[in-house]
Protein backbone atom coordinates (compact mmCIF):
# COMPACT_ATOMS: atom_id res chain seq x y z
CA UNK A 1 0.00 0.00 0.00
CA UNK A 2 1.44 3.34 -1.04
CA UNK A 3 1.02 5.89 1.69
CA UNK A 4 -0.51 9.25 1.01
CA UNK A 5 2.05 11.96 0.41
CA UNK A 6 1.27 15.62 -0.10
CA UNK A 7 4.05 15.77 -2.67
CA UNK A 8 1.88 13.84 -5.14
CA UNK A 9 -0.45 16.82 -5.35
CA UNK A 10 2.41 18.91 -6.75
CA UNK A 11 4.48 16.41 -8.69
CA UNK A 12 1.67 14.78 -10.64
CA UNK A 13 0.49 17.97 -12.36
CA UNK A 14 4.12 18.94 -13.03
CA UNK A 15 4.78 15.59 -14.71
CA UNK A 16 1.51 15.90 -16.56
CA UNK A 17 2.59 19.24 -17.96
CA UNK A 18 5.81 17.72 -19.30
CA UNK A 19 4.09 14.69 -20.79
CA UNK A 20 1.36 16.75 -22.39
CA UNK A 21 3.99 18.82 -24.18
CA UNK A 22 6.18 16.04 -25.54
CA UNK A 23 3.57 13.43 -26.27
CA UNK A 24 1.41 13.33 -29.40
CA UNK A 25 -1.62 11.97 -27.52
CA UNK A 26 -1.82 15.00 -25.28
CA UNK A 27 -5.58 15.03 -24.95
CA UNK A 28 -5.70 11.55 -23.41
CA UNK A 29 -2.79 12.32 -21.13
CA UNK A 30 -4.49 15.51 -20.08
CA UNK A 31 -7.71 13.67 -19.35
CA UNK A 32 -6.01 10.92 -17.38
CA UNK A 33 -3.89 13.24 -15.30
CA UNK A 34 -6.79 15.62 -14.68
CA UNK A 35 -8.85 12.75 -13.32
CA UNK A 36 -5.96 11.54 -11.21
CA UNK A 37 -5.24 14.97 -9.77
CA UNK A 38 -8.93 15.51 -9.17
CA UNK A 39 -9.18 12.26 -7.24
CA UNK A 40 -6.16 13.25 -5.19
CA UNK A 41 -7.79 16.57 -4.34
CA UNK A 42 -10.99 14.84 -3.29
CA UNK A 43 -9.00 12.35 -1.27
CA UNK A 44 -7.16 15.11 0.57
CA UNK A 45 -10.44 16.83 1.43
CA UNK A 46 -11.86 13.58 2.74
CA UNK A 47 -8.62 12.99 4.62
CA UNK A 48 -9.09 16.16 6.60
CA UNK A 49 -12.72 15.27 7.15
CA UNK A 50 -11.80 11.88 8.56
CA UNK A 51 -8.81 12.85 10.69
CA UNK A 52 -9.50 15.64 13.06
CA UNK A 53 -5.93 16.93 13.10
CA UNK A 54 -4.13 18.87 10.40
CA UNK A 55 -1.54 16.91 8.46
CA UNK A 56 1.94 18.42 8.54
CA UNK A 57 4.67 17.14 6.28
CA UNK A 58 8.27 18.33 6.50
CA UNK A 59 9.84 18.03 3.10
CA UNK A 60 13.13 16.18 3.20
CA UNK A 61 12.53 15.41 6.85
CA UNK A 62 13.85 18.85 7.81
CA UNK A 63 11.65 20.55 10.32
CA UNK A 64 11.20 24.31 10.14
CA UNK A 65 12.98 26.69 10.46
CA UNK A 66 15.48 24.69 8.42
CA UNK A 67 13.11 23.02 5.98
CA UNK A 68 9.80 23.69 4.35
CA UNK A 69 6.54 22.48 5.80
CA UNK A 70 3.42 21.45 3.93
CA UNK A 71 0.17 21.68 5.81
CA UNK A 72 -3.16 20.12 5.01
CA UNK A 73 -5.94 21.32 7.25
CA UNK A 74 -9.63 21.83 6.73
CA UNK A 75 -9.27 25.14 4.94
CA UNK A 76 -6.51 24.11 2.56
CA UNK A 77 -8.15 20.75 1.95
CA UNK A 78 -11.35 22.51 0.99
CA UNK A 79 -9.51 24.80 -1.40
CA UNK A 80 -7.78 21.80 -2.95
CA UNK A 81 -11.22 20.34 -3.55
CA UNK A 82 -12.31 23.59 -5.18
CA UNK A 83 -9.25 23.66 -7.44
CA UNK A 84 -9.87 20.05 -8.37
CA UNK A 85 -13.50 20.60 -9.31
CA UNK A 86 -12.94 23.75 -11.34
CA UNK A 87 -9.84 22.41 -13.07
CA UNK A 88 -11.47 19.11 -13.96
CA UNK A 89 -14.44 20.77 -15.63
CA UNK A 90 -12.28 23.34 -17.36
CA UNK A 91 -10.15 20.45 -18.64
CA UNK A 92 -13.23 18.67 -20.00
CA UNK A 93 -14.35 21.89 -21.64
CA UNK A 94 -10.92 22.60 -23.10
CA UNK A 95 -10.65 19.20 -24.73
CA UNK A 96 -13.58 20.10 -26.88
CA UNK A 97 -12.81 23.81 -27.14
CA UNK A 98 -9.32 23.49 -28.58
CA UNK A 99 -10.64 20.86 -30.94
CA UNK A 100 -12.87 23.38 -32.66
CA UNK A 101 -11.06 26.68 -32.08
CA UNK A 102 -7.53 28.02 -31.53
CA UNK A 103 -5.87 24.79 -32.55
CA UNK A 104 -2.32 26.20 -32.44
CA UNK A 105 -2.79 27.40 -28.88
CA UNK A 106 -4.17 24.02 -27.87
CA UNK A 107 -0.72 22.55 -28.33
CA UNK A 108 0.66 24.57 -25.46
CA UNK A 109 -2.47 25.08 -23.38
CA UNK A 110 -2.19 21.83 -21.45
CA UNK A 111 1.36 22.60 -20.38
CA UNK A 112 0.26 25.82 -18.73
CA UNK A 113 -2.96 24.32 -17.45
CA UNK A 114 -1.15 21.67 -15.43
CA UNK A 115 1.48 24.12 -14.30
CA UNK A 116 -1.26 26.30 -12.98
CA UNK A 117 -2.76 23.36 -11.15
CA UNK A 118 0.59 22.47 -9.61
CA UNK A 119 1.17 26.06 -8.60
CA UNK A 120 -2.25 26.34 -6.99
CA UNK A 121 -1.84 23.10 -5.07
CA UNK A 122 1.62 24.19 -3.96
CA UNK A 123 0.29 27.53 -2.82
CA UNK A 124 -2.57 26.21 -0.74
CA UNK A 125 -0.44 23.50 0.86
CA UNK A 126 2.57 25.58 1.72
CA UNK A 127 3.17 27.14 5.08
CA UNK A 128 6.54 28.69 4.33
CA UNK A 129 6.54 32.34 3.32
CA UNK A 130 9.33 32.09 0.78
CA UNK A 131 7.86 28.97 -0.71
CA UNK A 132 4.64 30.88 -1.10
CA UNK A 133 6.59 33.49 -3.06
CA UNK A 134 7.85 30.89 -5.51
CA UNK A 135 4.39 29.35 -5.83
CA UNK A 136 2.91 32.79 -6.38
CA UNK A 137 5.48 33.39 -9.09
CA UNK A 138 4.54 30.11 -10.80
CA UNK A 139 0.91 31.22 -10.69
CA UNK A 140 1.43 34.71 -12.00
CA UNK A 141 3.81 33.76 -14.80
CA UNK A 142 1.40 31.04 -15.93
CA UNK A 143 -1.44 33.51 -15.75
CA UNK A 144 0.49 36.06 -17.82
CA UNK A 145 1.21 33.49 -20.50
CA UNK A 146 -2.40 32.30 -20.49
CA UNK A 147 -3.52 35.89 -21.07
CA UNK A 148 -1.15 36.25 -24.01
CA UNK A 149 -2.17 32.87 -25.45
CA UNK A 150 -4.50 34.06 -28.26
CA UNK A 151 -1.64 36.18 -29.61
CA UNK A 152 -3.50 39.24 -30.80
CA UNK A 153 -2.51 42.75 -29.87
CA UNK A 154 -5.17 43.39 -27.23
CA UNK A 155 -4.25 40.24 -25.34
CA UNK A 156 -0.51 40.87 -25.53
CA UNK A 157 -0.92 44.39 -24.24
CA UNK A 158 -3.12 43.26 -21.36
CA UNK A 159 -0.72 40.49 -20.47
CA UNK A 160 2.25 42.85 -20.56
CA UNK A 161 0.63 45.25 -18.13
CA UNK A 162 -0.33 42.32 -15.94
CA UNK A 163 3.22 41.01 -16.04
CA UNK A 164 4.76 44.32 -15.03
CA UNK A 165 2.39 44.77 -12.13
CA UNK A 166 2.78 41.22 -10.95
CA UNK A 167 6.60 41.39 -11.03
CA UNK A 168 6.33 44.59 -9.01
CA UNK A 169 4.03 42.86 -6.55
CA UNK A 170 6.35 39.87 -6.27
CA UNK A 171 9.28 42.12 -5.54
CA UNK A 172 7.29 43.89 -2.86
CA UNK A 173 6.31 40.59 -1.34
CA UNK A 174 9.93 39.46 -1.38
CA UNK A 175 10.95 42.73 0.25
CA UNK A 176 8.41 42.10 3.00
CA UNK A 177 9.79 38.62 3.55
CA UNK A 178 13.33 39.98 3.68
CA UNK A 179 12.26 42.46 6.33
CA UNK A 180 10.52 39.76 8.36
CA UNK A 181 13.53 37.50 8.04
CA UNK A 182 15.85 40.27 9.17
CA UNK A 183 13.79 40.70 12.32
CA UNK A 184 12.66 37.22 13.23
CA UNK A 185 14.94 34.87 11.33
CA UNK A 186 12.26 32.37 10.37
CA UNK A 187 10.19 31.81 7.25
CA UNK A 188 7.68 29.27 8.45
CA UNK A 189 4.28 30.69 9.30
CA UNK A 190 3.67 28.63 12.41
CA UNK A 191 7.05 29.53 13.90
CA UNK A 192 6.59 33.14 12.89
CA UNK A 193 3.31 33.32 14.78
CA UNK A 194 5.10 32.26 17.96
CA UNK A 195 7.89 34.76 17.45
CA UNK A 196 5.55 37.60 16.53
CA UNK A 197 3.57 37.73 19.74
CA UNK A 198 4.12 40.95 21.69
CA UNK A 199 6.30 42.49 19.01
CA UNK A 200 5.60 45.38 16.71
CA UNK A 201 8.36 45.31 14.11
CA UNK A 202 6.29 43.24 11.72
CA UNK A 203 4.17 46.30 10.91
CA UNK A 204 6.90 47.67 8.64
CA UNK A 205 7.13 44.41 6.74
CA UNK A 206 3.37 44.11 6.55
CA UNK A 207 3.20 47.28 4.49
CA UNK A 208 4.93 45.96 1.32
CA UNK A 209 3.30 42.55 1.77
CA UNK A 210 -0.17 44.08 1.90
CA UNK A 211 0.51 46.19 -1.19
CA UNK A 212 1.76 43.10 -2.99
CA UNK A 213 -1.29 41.03 -2.08
CA UNK A 214 -3.61 43.90 -3.00
CA UNK A 215 -2.03 44.19 -6.43
CA UNK A 216 -2.19 40.46 -7.03
CA UNK A 217 -5.80 40.13 -5.99
CA UNK A 218 -6.84 43.35 -7.80
CA UNK A 219 -8.03 45.32 -4.81
CA UNK A 220 -9.36 48.70 -5.75
CA UNK A 221 -6.59 51.16 -6.54
CA UNK A 222 -4.74 48.35 -8.30
CA UNK A 223 -7.70 46.76 -10.08
CA UNK A 224 -7.09 48.26 -13.52
CA UNK A 225 -5.03 45.35 -14.83
CA UNK A 226 -7.76 42.79 -14.25
CA UNK A 227 -10.58 43.56 -16.72
CA UNK A 228 -8.42 43.70 -19.86
CA UNK A 229 -6.38 40.69 -18.77
CA UNK A 230 -9.32 38.46 -17.91
CA UNK A 231 -11.53 39.48 -20.78
CA UNK A 232 -9.15 39.32 -23.72
CA UNK A 233 -8.04 35.71 -23.60
CA UNK A 234 -9.71 32.44 -24.60
CA UNK A 235 -12.66 31.20 -22.54
CA UNK A 236 -11.04 28.33 -20.58
CA UNK A 237 -8.09 30.53 -19.67
CA UNK A 238 -10.40 33.32 -18.56
CA UNK A 239 -12.30 30.85 -16.43
CA UNK A 240 -9.13 29.64 -14.73
CA UNK A 241 -7.77 33.13 -14.17
CA UNK A 242 -10.94 34.65 -12.85
CA UNK A 243 -12.01 31.80 -10.67
CA UNK A 244 -8.73 30.45 -9.32
CA UNK A 245 -5.67 32.58 -9.90
CA UNK A 246 -6.68 35.69 -7.98
CA UNK A 247 -7.88 33.82 -4.89
CA UNK A 248 -4.53 32.72 -3.40
CA UNK A 249 -3.37 36.23 -2.31
CA UNK A 250 -6.64 36.77 -0.46
CA UNK A 251 -6.26 33.37 1.18
CA UNK A 252 -2.74 34.25 2.27
CA UNK A 253 -4.04 37.47 3.77
CA UNK A 254 -6.65 35.54 5.73
CA UNK A 255 -4.02 33.11 7.01
CA UNK A 256 -1.70 35.92 8.04
CA UNK A 257 -4.40 37.85 9.83
CA UNK A 258 -6.07 34.95 11.56
CA UNK A 259 -3.10 32.75 12.42
CA UNK A 260 0.15 34.65 12.27
CA UNK A 261 -0.22 38.29 13.18
CA UNK A 262 -0.80 39.22 16.81
CA UNK A 263 -3.37 41.75 18.00
CA UNK A 264 -2.03 45.21 17.43
CA UNK A 265 -3.71 48.55 17.29
CA UNK A 266 -2.15 49.47 13.94
CA UNK A 267 -3.59 46.30 12.43
CA UNK A 268 -7.04 47.52 13.34
CA UNK A 269 -6.51 50.71 11.36
CA UNK A 270 -5.16 48.69 8.46
CA UNK A 271 -8.23 46.48 8.54
CA UNK A 272 -10.45 49.56 8.32
CA UNK A 273 -8.50 50.82 5.29
CA UNK A 274 -8.77 47.42 3.64
CA UNK A 275 -12.48 47.20 4.27
CA UNK A 276 -13.05 50.67 2.81
CA UNK A 277 -11.12 49.61 -0.28
CA UNK A 278 -13.16 46.43 -0.43
CA UNK A 279 -16.43 48.35 -0.18
CA UNK A 280 -15.31 50.74 -2.91
CA UNK A 281 -14.30 47.75 -5.03
CA UNK A 282 -17.81 46.33 -4.66
CA UNK A 283 -19.47 49.58 -5.72
CA UNK A 284 -17.09 50.60 -8.49
CA UNK A 285 -16.71 47.07 -9.84
CA UNK A 286 -20.46 46.60 -9.95
CA UNK A 287 -20.97 50.02 -11.51
CA UNK A 288 -18.58 49.27 -14.34
CA UNK A 289 -20.01 45.78 -14.72
CA UNK A 290 -23.49 47.21 -15.18
CA UNK A 291 -22.23 49.58 -17.83
CA UNK A 292 -20.41 47.00 -19.93
CA UNK A 293 -21.75 45.98 -23.31
CA UNK A 294 -19.62 42.85 -23.76
CA UNK A 295 -20.14 39.78 -21.66
CA UNK A 296 -16.49 39.04 -20.85
CA UNK A 297 -15.71 42.52 -19.60
CA UNK A 298 -18.89 42.41 -17.54
CA UNK A 299 -17.74 39.20 -15.90
CA UNK A 300 -14.24 40.58 -15.32
CA UNK A 301 -15.58 43.65 -13.54
CA UNK A 302 -17.88 41.43 -11.53
CA UNK A 303 -14.74 39.60 -10.36
CA UNK A 304 -13.38 42.91 -9.05
CA UNK A 305 -16.63 43.40 -7.15
CA UNK A 306 -16.72 39.87 -5.78
CA UNK A 307 -13.12 40.06 -4.58
CA UNK A 308 -14.19 43.19 -2.74
CA UNK A 309 -16.25 41.07 -0.32
CA UNK A 310 -13.16 39.23 0.85
CA UNK A 311 -11.47 42.51 1.77
CA UNK A 312 -14.61 44.19 3.06
CA UNK A 313 -14.59 41.66 5.87
CA UNK A 314 -11.05 42.53 7.02
CA UNK A 315 -12.25 43.85 10.42
CA UNK A 316 -13.91 40.50 11.00
CA UNK A 317 -10.59 38.75 10.42
CA UNK A 318 -9.07 41.06 12.98
CA UNK A 319 -11.78 40.82 15.63
CA UNK A 320 -13.02 37.31 14.94
CA UNK A 321 -10.18 35.47 16.66
CA UNK A 322 -12.68 33.66 18.88
CA UNK A 323 -14.83 32.60 15.94
CA UNK A 324 -11.98 31.40 13.77
CA UNK A 325 -13.85 28.39 12.41
CA UNK A 326 -16.86 30.46 11.45
CA UNK A 327 -14.71 33.05 9.70
CA UNK A 328 -12.91 30.34 7.77
CA UNK A 329 -16.20 28.75 6.79
CA UNK A 330 -17.66 32.00 5.52
CA UNK A 331 -14.50 32.96 3.64
CA UNK A 332 -14.01 29.55 2.09
CA UNK A 333 -17.60 29.23 0.99
CA UNK A 334 -17.57 32.70 -0.57
CA UNK A 335 -14.42 31.85 -2.52
CA UNK A 336 -15.81 28.46 -3.49
CA UNK A 337 -19.11 29.72 -4.75
CA UNK A 338 -17.51 32.54 -6.68
CA UNK A 339 -14.90 30.25 -8.21
CA UNK A 340 -17.40 27.71 -9.46
CA UNK A 341 -19.91 30.28 -10.63
CA UNK A 342 -17.38 32.51 -12.36
CA UNK A 343 -15.74 29.57 -14.10
CA UNK A 344 -19.13 28.40 -15.32
CA UNK A 345 -20.03 31.87 -16.55
CA UNK A 346 -16.79 32.32 -18.45
CA UNK A 347 -17.15 28.89 -20.01
CA UNK A 348 -20.72 29.72 -21.04
CA UNK A 349 -19.55 33.01 -22.45
CA UNK A 350 -17.10 30.95 -24.46
CA UNK A 351 -20.06 28.93 -25.75
CA UNK A 352 -21.93 32.08 -26.65
CA UNK A 353 -18.97 33.56 -28.47
CA UNK A 354 -18.46 30.27 -30.27
CA UNK A 355 -21.98 30.48 -31.62
CA UNK A 356 -22.30 34.20 -32.23
CA UNK A 357 -18.67 34.97 -33.12
CA UNK A 358 -19.09 38.25 -31.25
CA UNK A 359 -18.95 39.01 -27.58
CA UNK A 360 -21.44 41.85 -27.33
CA UNK A 361 -24.33 41.05 -25.02
CA UNK A 362 -26.82 42.07 -27.67
CA UNK A 363 -25.49 39.35 -29.95
CA UNK A 364 -26.55 36.47 -27.75
CA UNK A 365 -30.32 36.62 -27.67
CA UNK A 366 -32.68 33.72 -27.37
CA UNK A 367 -30.23 31.31 -25.82
CA UNK A 368 -32.89 29.95 -23.53
CA UNK A 369 -34.61 28.53 -26.60
CA UNK A 370 -31.72 27.54 -28.80
CA UNK A 371 -29.15 26.36 -26.27
CA UNK A 372 -30.89 25.59 -23.01
CA UNK A 373 -27.83 24.02 -21.36
CA UNK A 374 -25.80 27.16 -21.77
CA UNK A 375 -28.68 29.22 -20.55
CA UNK A 376 -29.11 27.10 -17.43
CA UNK A 377 -25.39 27.33 -16.74
CA UNK A 378 -25.67 31.10 -16.88
CA UNK A 379 -28.80 30.98 -14.77
CA UNK A 380 -27.43 28.85 -11.97
CA UNK A 381 -24.09 30.57 -11.81
CA UNK A 382 -25.68 34.01 -11.96
CA UNK A 383 -27.96 33.03 -9.10
CA UNK A 384 -24.93 31.97 -7.11
CA UNK A 385 -23.13 35.24 -7.80
CA UNK A 386 -26.15 37.19 -6.60
CA UNK A 387 -26.60 34.88 -3.67
CA UNK A 388 -30.17 33.70 -4.25
CA UNK A 389 -31.44 31.33 -1.57
CA UNK A 390 -30.38 27.68 -1.77
CA UNK A 391 -27.18 28.57 -3.63
CA UNK A 392 -23.71 28.31 -2.07
CA UNK A 393 -23.30 32.05 -2.51
CA UNK A 394 -26.36 32.54 -0.33
CA UNK A 395 -24.95 30.43 2.45
CA UNK A 396 -21.62 32.25 2.29
CA UNK A 397 -23.27 35.63 2.46
CA UNK A 398 -25.52 34.43 5.24
CA UNK A 399 -22.53 33.29 7.27
CA UNK A 400 -20.76 36.59 6.71
CA UNK A 401 -23.91 38.46 7.72
CA UNK A 402 -24.24 36.39 10.86
CA UNK A 403 -20.62 37.09 11.77
CA UNK A 404 -20.88 40.80 11.14
CA UNK A 405 -23.98 41.01 13.32
CA UNK A 406 -22.34 38.96 16.06
CA UNK A 407 -19.28 41.18 16.08
CA UNK A 408 -21.25 44.38 15.67
CA UNK A 409 -20.26 45.39 12.13
CA UNK A 410 -23.73 46.22 10.89
CA UNK A 411 -22.48 48.57 8.20
CA UNK A 412 -20.36 45.84 6.63
CA UNK A 413 -23.34 43.50 6.52
CA UNK A 414 -25.42 46.23 4.93
CA UNK A 415 -22.79 46.92 2.27
CA UNK A 416 -22.68 43.23 1.49
CA UNK A 417 -26.42 43.07 0.97
CA UNK A 418 -26.21 46.13 -1.24
CA UNK A 419 -23.49 44.37 -3.20
CA UNK A 420 -25.87 41.46 -3.79
CA UNK A 421 -28.45 43.85 -5.12
CA UNK A 422 -25.89 45.38 -7.48
CA UNK A 423 -24.87 41.88 -8.58
CA UNK A 424 -28.43 41.16 -9.60
CA UNK A 425 -28.35 44.35 -11.66
CA UNK A 426 -25.43 43.17 -13.74
CA UNK A 427 -26.47 39.54 -13.97
CA UNK A 428 -29.99 40.44 -15.04
CA UNK A 429 -29.11 41.77 -18.55
CA UNK A 430 -27.53 38.42 -19.39
CA UNK A 431 -30.70 36.53 -18.43
CA UNK A 432 -32.85 39.07 -20.20
CA UNK A 433 -30.98 38.66 -23.45
CA UNK A 434 -31.20 34.90 -23.16
CA UNK A 435 -34.97 35.02 -22.67
CA UNK A 436 -35.58 37.59 -25.38
CA UNK A 437 -38.60 36.25 -27.21
CA UNK A 438 -37.96 38.24 -30.36
CA UNK A 439 -34.37 37.41 -31.12
CA UNK A 440 -32.88 39.55 -33.87
CA UNK A 441 -31.11 36.50 -35.13
CA UNK A 442 -31.76 32.89 -34.25
CA UNK A 443 -28.66 30.79 -33.75
CA UNK A 444 -29.01 27.12 -34.50
CA UNK A 445 -25.30 26.36 -34.73
CA UNK A 446 -24.80 23.47 -32.31
CA UNK A 447 -22.24 23.75 -29.52
CA UNK A 448 -20.07 20.69 -28.88
CA UNK A 449 -21.80 18.71 -26.14
CA UNK A 450 -18.80 18.49 -23.84
CA UNK A 451 -18.51 22.27 -23.80
CA UNK A 452 -22.15 22.75 -22.92
CA UNK A 453 -22.32 20.03 -20.32
CA UNK A 454 -19.16 20.95 -18.44
CA UNK A 455 -20.21 24.58 -18.20
CA UNK A 456 -23.65 23.52 -17.07
CA UNK A 457 -22.39 21.08 -14.47
CA UNK A 458 -20.08 23.67 -12.95
CA UNK A 459 -22.93 26.15 -12.64
CA UNK A 460 -25.21 23.48 -11.26
CA UNK A 461 -22.62 22.46 -8.70
CA UNK A 462 -22.11 26.08 -7.68
CA UNK A 463 -25.81 26.38 -7.05
CA UNK A 464 -26.60 23.02 -5.58
CA UNK A 465 -23.60 22.84 -3.25
CA UNK A 466 -25.59 25.32 -1.18
CA UNK A 467 -27.73 22.33 -0.19
CA UNK A 468 -24.86 20.18 1.05
CA UNK A 469 -23.08 22.93 2.89
CA UNK A 470 -23.37 21.04 6.16
CA UNK A 471 -20.91 18.49 4.86
CA UNK A 472 -18.59 21.11 3.34
CA UNK A 473 -18.66 23.35 6.39
CA UNK A 474 -17.78 20.46 8.63
CA UNK A 475 -14.76 19.77 6.45
CA UNK A 476 -13.58 23.38 6.57
CA UNK A 477 -13.85 23.50 10.33
CA UNK A 478 -11.58 20.47 10.78
CA UNK A 479 -8.20 21.62 11.94
Amino acid at each position, binding site marked *: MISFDLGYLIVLPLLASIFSLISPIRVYIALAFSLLSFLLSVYSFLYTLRDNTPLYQWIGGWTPPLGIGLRLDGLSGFFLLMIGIVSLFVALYSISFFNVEYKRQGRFFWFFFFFLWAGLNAFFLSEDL*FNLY*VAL*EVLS*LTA*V*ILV*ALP*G*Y*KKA*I*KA*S*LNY*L*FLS*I*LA*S*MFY*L*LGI*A*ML*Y*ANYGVLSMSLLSQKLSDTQEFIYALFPITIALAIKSALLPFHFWLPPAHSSTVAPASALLSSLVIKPPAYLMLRLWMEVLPKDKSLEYLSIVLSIMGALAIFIGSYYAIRQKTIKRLLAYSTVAQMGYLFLMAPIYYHGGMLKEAVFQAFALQVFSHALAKASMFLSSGNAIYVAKRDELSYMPGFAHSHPFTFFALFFSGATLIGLPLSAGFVAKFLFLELSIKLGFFLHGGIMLLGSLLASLYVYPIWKECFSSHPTKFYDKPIPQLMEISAFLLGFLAFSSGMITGFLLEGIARR
Partner: protein
Amino acid sequence: MIWFYYILAILLVIISLYHFIVARNYVKRLIALNILGSGVFLFFITTAKNTNTESPDPVPHALVLTGIVVAVSATAIAVSLILHLNKEEE
Protein backbone atom coordinates in the same frame (compact mmCIF):
# COMPACT_ATOMS: atom_id res chain seq x y z
CA MET B 1 29.44 48.73 6.76
CA ILE B 2 26.24 46.71 7.07
CA TRP B 3 24.20 49.85 7.59
CA PHE B 4 25.70 51.43 4.49
CA TYR B 5 24.55 48.45 2.43
CA TYR B 6 21.11 48.48 4.02
CA ILE B 7 20.69 52.13 3.10
CA LEU B 8 21.99 51.49 -0.40
CA ALA B 9 19.41 48.73 -0.81
CA ILE B 10 16.62 51.04 0.32
CA LEU B 11 17.76 53.80 -2.02
CA LEU B 12 17.86 51.39 -4.94
CA VAL B 13 14.35 50.20 -4.14
CA ILE B 14 12.83 53.64 -3.95
CA ILE B 15 14.52 55.24 -6.96
CA SER B 16 13.61 52.31 -9.17
CA LEU B 17 10.06 52.29 -7.82
CA TYR B 18 9.76 55.99 -8.67
CA HIS B 19 11.06 55.43 -12.18
CA PHE B 20 8.86 52.40 -12.67
CA ILE B 21 5.77 54.47 -12.01
CA VAL B 22 6.96 57.47 -14.00
CA ALA B 23 8.39 55.72 -17.06
CA ARG B 24 6.14 55.35 -20.07
CA ASN B 25 8.59 53.22 -22.01
CA TYR B 26 8.46 49.46 -21.60
CA VAL B 27 12.24 49.08 -21.77
CA LYS B 28 12.75 51.60 -18.99
CA ARG B 29 10.09 49.93 -16.90
CA LEU B 30 11.74 46.57 -17.31
CA ILE B 31 15.12 47.97 -16.29
CA ALA B 32 13.52 49.69 -13.30
CA LEU B 33 11.99 46.41 -12.18
CA ASN B 34 15.30 44.62 -12.47
CA ILE B 35 17.02 47.28 -10.40
CA LEU B 36 14.22 47.08 -7.84
CA GLY B 37 14.90 43.37 -7.66
CA SER B 38 18.61 43.99 -7.12
CA GLY B 39 17.77 46.32 -4.27
CA VAL B 40 15.66 43.65 -2.60
CA PHE B 41 18.39 41.07 -3.11
CA LEU B 42 20.94 43.44 -1.62
CA PHE B 43 18.72 43.78 1.44
CA PHE B 44 18.60 40.00 1.76
CA ILE B 45 22.34 39.47 1.31
CA THR B 46 23.16 42.21 3.79
CA THR B 47 20.89 40.48 6.28
CA ALA B 48 22.87 37.31 5.66
CA LYS B 49 26.03 39.14 6.69
CA ASN B 50 24.35 40.47 9.81
CA THR B 51 24.86 37.36 11.97
CA ASN B 52 27.12 36.18 14.76
CA THR B 53 28.30 33.09 12.91
CA GLU B 54 31.70 33.05 11.28
CA SER B 55 30.58 32.79 7.68
CA PRO B 56 27.41 34.51 6.49
CA ASP B 57 23.97 32.87 6.65
CA PRO B 58 23.60 30.62 3.59
CA VAL B 59 19.80 30.64 3.60
CA PRO B 60 19.36 34.16 2.16
CA HIS B 61 22.00 33.33 -0.44
CA ALA B 62 19.96 30.38 -1.62
CA LEU B 63 16.79 32.46 -1.57
CA VAL B 64 18.44 35.21 -3.60
CA LEU B 65 19.68 32.66 -6.14
CA THR B 66 16.10 31.52 -6.55
CA GLY B 67 14.98 35.13 -6.80
CA ILE B 68 17.51 35.97 -9.52
CA VAL B 69 16.51 33.00 -11.63
CA VAL B 70 12.83 33.90 -11.26
CA ALA B 71 13.56 37.52 -12.17
CA VAL B 72 15.44 36.49 -15.29
CA SER B 73 12.55 34.22 -16.32
CA ALA B 74 10.09 37.06 -15.93
CA THR B 75 12.39 39.38 -17.88
CA ALA B 76 12.62 36.86 -20.70
CA ILE B 77 8.82 36.69 -20.94
CA ALA B 78 8.54 40.48 -20.81
CA VAL B 79 11.11 40.94 -23.58
CA SER B 80 9.38 38.48 -25.80
CA LEU B 81 5.95 40.05 -25.16
CA ILE B 82 7.25 43.55 -25.93
CA LEU B 83 8.88 42.37 -29.14
CA HIS B 84 5.64 40.68 -30.10
CA LEU B 85 3.71 43.85 -29.44
CA ASN B 86 6.09 45.87 -31.60
CA LYS B 87 5.75 43.38 -34.41
CA GLU B 88 1.98 43.66 -34.24
CA GLU B 89 2.24 47.43 -34.40
CA GLU B 90 4.45 47.46 -37.48
